[in-house]
């Protein structure tokens, strides 16, 4: 069964007021919501609170979601708003978009830095962990507006359209922020894990 079809069944059982529907919803989306919250809010108690609040509040309102295609966007909208509310209590975020010029590689050496290939990471668990830690840290360094787009598109695998709906921005802004977020993440990975092109060929 594809995910749209299983979401349709879930929404049907919620509308029927099936007592088992809540547990089914939590088991299907709880991990994703917690993961997203942890990557947006940081790995704090906040993230757990956001996940629990979101799951309880969202479930009550799910009866009004008619189309299964809309479920994911709607759910991430609830959780990203909850994360933003907590964030506003903390630091102020600049609203200015990053210039593409600032993200262009500086010369050939910079352009040709080699990043490890996910498909052929070493078997050594410690080395894999080091790579994951660098990716995790790189995502953490992104400004939240960029981080959320990258998380929704590349990690939660939402479409451009679903991401736009979830974050209440237009699709061209999603594309623009996603590209800049990936470029910034590439830069962090190049600094932490990269090797210069000719010096160290990494098999792919």
């Amino acid at each position: 069964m594809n995910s749209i079809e299983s979401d349709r069944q879930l929404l049907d059982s919620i509308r029927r007021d099936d007592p088992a529907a809540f547990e089914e919803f939590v088991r299907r989306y709880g991990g994703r919501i917690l993961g997203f919250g942890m990557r947006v809010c940081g790995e704090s108690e906040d993230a757990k609170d956001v996940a629990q609040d979101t799951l309880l509040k969202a479930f009550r309102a799910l009866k009004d979601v008619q189309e299964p295609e809309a479920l994911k966007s709607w759910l991430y909208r609830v959780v990203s708003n909850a994360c933003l509310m907590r964030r506003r209590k903390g630091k102020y975020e600049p609203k200015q978009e990053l210039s593409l010029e600032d993200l262009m590689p500086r010369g050939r050496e910079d352009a040709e830095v080699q990043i490890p290939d996910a498909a052929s990471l070493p078997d050594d668990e410690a080395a894999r962990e080091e790579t994951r830690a660098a990716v995790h840290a790189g995502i953490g360094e992104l400004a939240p507006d960029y981080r959320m787009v990258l998380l929704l598109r590349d990690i939660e695998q939402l479409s451009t359209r679903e991401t736009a709906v979830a974050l209440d921005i237009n699709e061209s802004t999603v594309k623009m922020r996603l590209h800049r977020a990936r470029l910034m993440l590439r830069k962090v990975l190049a600094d932490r894990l990269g090797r210069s092109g000719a010096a160290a060929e990494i098999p792919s």
Partner: protein
Amino acid sequence: MSACREMFARLSEYLDGELDPEICSRIELHMDDCPPCQAFLESLRRTVDLARDLPEHELPEAITRELVEAYRKTRESGGN
């Protein structure tokens, strides 16, 4: 260099298959003649793959049970 700059702005859309075939062909033509752009595109593709490769989170069983219990109580008290 201005051709490289033009390519550079569209690389994520190219990787995501969101560009018209005509623009894709132009990018591919440019890549054939520009090893730095080729290498850069590959490093960007690998960056995206590494992000996608991060392990999924799981909601700890204790939290799941807690939530299901909290929900059961609100249902029983008519708060659903």
